[in-house]
């Protein structure tokens, strides 16, 4: 924004200066020419007097004197007949001949200037062509080597100073706009930063232009509201946990006190199912607590860390566990805790249902629509017939089968999904799509 403001101001000032300075330069040039023409007219009058009354030597002396300067005006006297012309621009042409014959002065535009031709009669009161000298005064158009150049240079310097001054003012103004906006943006960024709890965030300072102050105030109000809602949700979740788990505790203790072992076992099994359901409900209710304001986790980093954790067990079982991970991070919409639990469930399923040394492979790829695809597959016996609904899960030795339901909840919450099928390795394959953060 600061750069845009500077560029805009530079462009605007540049256009204004151009619009003013170009006509001004032409105007200055015209004024300079007009000044020379006035001076030339005076010189013509003086020269006329000298030519009419003085001899050739005096005229030559006079012309040397007035042509000596570097004022861009040269005066030449063109005598008729065989009398030698005096001055730097000697030589007749049609215009000179016309002036001499008609006795009427003329002014013409010539290359790089203006030419004045004035007849002077040297034959007394009766003008005659053969006794008429012509004064030729050539006035050069002011060029870059004249005083005009100095004036234009001063004008240009003033223009440049104006541009630089405007840019400095624009930069200062821009900083005044940009720094408070940056502070607000950095604050908003911190709200979503992984690992920082929104409840611990201090309000952003309300400074800068009115619009930025309004934005900062609105953001602070929003964060305060979120903090209140999260606190309420945390309290509500604690209350739900307490309300649901306390009666189940009573039931468990009552079941423990039953004398009939079979009845006790049956009731405990029912309570196990009930407790598993309650755990799933509470876990789902706490998802936003785990995710915070912005759920964003690097899927590659989490998968790498969890695969390394399980690798040790794989090595002990002489099981080949490979991970094919992209080199760049892939942020997904899930908390690190939920994502780690998801990977653990998938790897746990492999280790539980694919007997060692069946190989296992974990692949993470970027999805075209954003997010990541995590694929866990093995060379085990595959899923039993009829397994297709993750909601029912995969139940088997050492597992309650709730794992895939947890995986599916995390996947769908992030805007993705879950697919269970066979792997080219020969066993089961679970594909989890996770939405972009």
């Amino acid at each position, binding site marked *: 924004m600061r750069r845009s403001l500077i560029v805009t101001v530079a462009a605007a000032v540049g256009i204004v200066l151009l619009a003013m300075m170009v006509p001004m330069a032409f105007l200055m040039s015209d004024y300079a020419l007009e000044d020379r023409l006035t001076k030339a007219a005076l010189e013509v009058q003086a020269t006329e007097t000298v030519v009419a009354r003085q001899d050739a030597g005096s005229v030559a002396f006079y012309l040397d004197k007035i042509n000596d300067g570097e004022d861009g005006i040269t005066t030449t006297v063109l005598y008729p007949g065989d009398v030698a012309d005096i001055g730097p621009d000697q030589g007749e042409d049609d215009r000179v001949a016309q002036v001499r014959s008609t006795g009427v002065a003329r002014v013409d535009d010539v290359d790089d200037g203006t030419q004045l031709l004035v007849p002077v009669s040297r034959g007394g009161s009766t003008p005659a062509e053969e006794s008429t000298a012509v004064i030729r005064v050539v006035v050069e158009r002011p060029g870059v080597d004249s005083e005009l150049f100095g004036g234009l240079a001063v004008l240009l310097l003033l223009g440049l100073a104006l541009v630089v001054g405007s840019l400095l003012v624009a930069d200062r103004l821009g900083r005044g706009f940009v720094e408070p906006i940056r502070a607000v943006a950095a604050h908003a960024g911190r709200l979503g930063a992984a690992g920082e709890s929104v409840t611990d965030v201090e309000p952003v300072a309300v400074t800068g232009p009115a619009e930025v102050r309004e934005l900062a105030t609105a953001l602070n109000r929003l964060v305060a509201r979120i903090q209140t809602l999260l606190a309420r949700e945390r309290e509500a979740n*604690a209350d739900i*946990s*307490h309300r*649901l*788990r*306390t*009666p*189940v*505790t*009573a*039931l*468990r*203790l*009552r079941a*423990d*006190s039953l004398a009939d072992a079979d009845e006790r076992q049956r009731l405990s099994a029912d*309570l*196990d*199912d009930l*407790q*598993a359901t309650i*755990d799933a409900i509470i876990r789902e209710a*706490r998802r936003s607590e785990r995710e915070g304001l912005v759920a964003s986790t690097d899927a590659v980093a989490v998968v790498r860390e969890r695969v390394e*954790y*399980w690798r*040790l*067990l794989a090595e*002990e079982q002489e099981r080949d566990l490979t991970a094919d991970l992209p080199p760049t991070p892939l942020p997904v919409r899930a908390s690190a805790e939920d994502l780690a639990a998801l990977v*653990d469930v998938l790897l*746990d399923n492999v*280790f*539980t249902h694919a007997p060692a040394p069946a190989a296992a492979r974990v692949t993470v790829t970027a999805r075209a629509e954003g997010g990541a695809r995590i694929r866990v597959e093995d060379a085990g016996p595959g899923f039993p017939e009829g397994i297709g609904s993750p909601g029912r899960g995969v139940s088997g030795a*050492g*597992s*309650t089968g*709730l*794992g895939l339901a947890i995986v599916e909840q995390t996947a769908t919450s992030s805007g993705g999904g879950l697919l269970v099928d066979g792997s080219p390795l020969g066993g089961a394959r679970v594909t989890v799509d996770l939405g972009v953060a």
Partner: protein
Amino acid sequence: MAQVLIIEDDPRIRPLVIKALTERGHAVSSAATGMSGLTAAIDGRPDLVVLDLGLPDVDGTQVLSMLRAVSDVPVIVATARDDDPSLVACLDGGADDYVVKPYTTDQLAARIGAVLRRVAPGGRAADPAISIGGLRIDVPARRATLDDVALDLTPKEFDLLRYLAERPGEVVTKRTLLAEVWQQPWGGSEKTVDVHLSWLRRKLGETAAEPRFLETIRGVGVRLSTEGS
């Protein structure tokens, strides 16, 4: 036999806990509110307090803080929250152990037994750490060392080691570990226990083939060997 005070507001749970612990040989008293429990804990001088956090008058964590200000009596917190931060906050707040609802009679009795073994009669132990050979586990500080070198353990690895160390020489099944350490008596996978045991072995500088402390009893479970020293 130990004198146990139960601070629990739920009228269904309180008598069942009293009955179960009485049957296990403890002398049990109870209180239904935080303030009456605090009074009973100060006046009655029990050997151990089981404190429910969801009390009607004062929050259980505040009762714990107030109790800790005046007494060293061991406290086991009964909580419905099973997330790690909440449990660690309980321990940091002065609890000696915790049990997550819904707990069974056996679980509660086992926690009471483990805590009582760590404390001297009438108060907290002068040294709350468990020492087995070169292995030393400081439970309140949640720190473990092996031959005076600190072990870098995850919270679950520490809990696992601590649970086994509180029962040296006793074979513990993986299902029991899931119930006691993972608080999942009804779920979880034994492979989760296996992978944590693998890391624990590595951090203890041993292998399954050549164990020093962690000894796997095939088909039964695992035990922490006292011969590791």
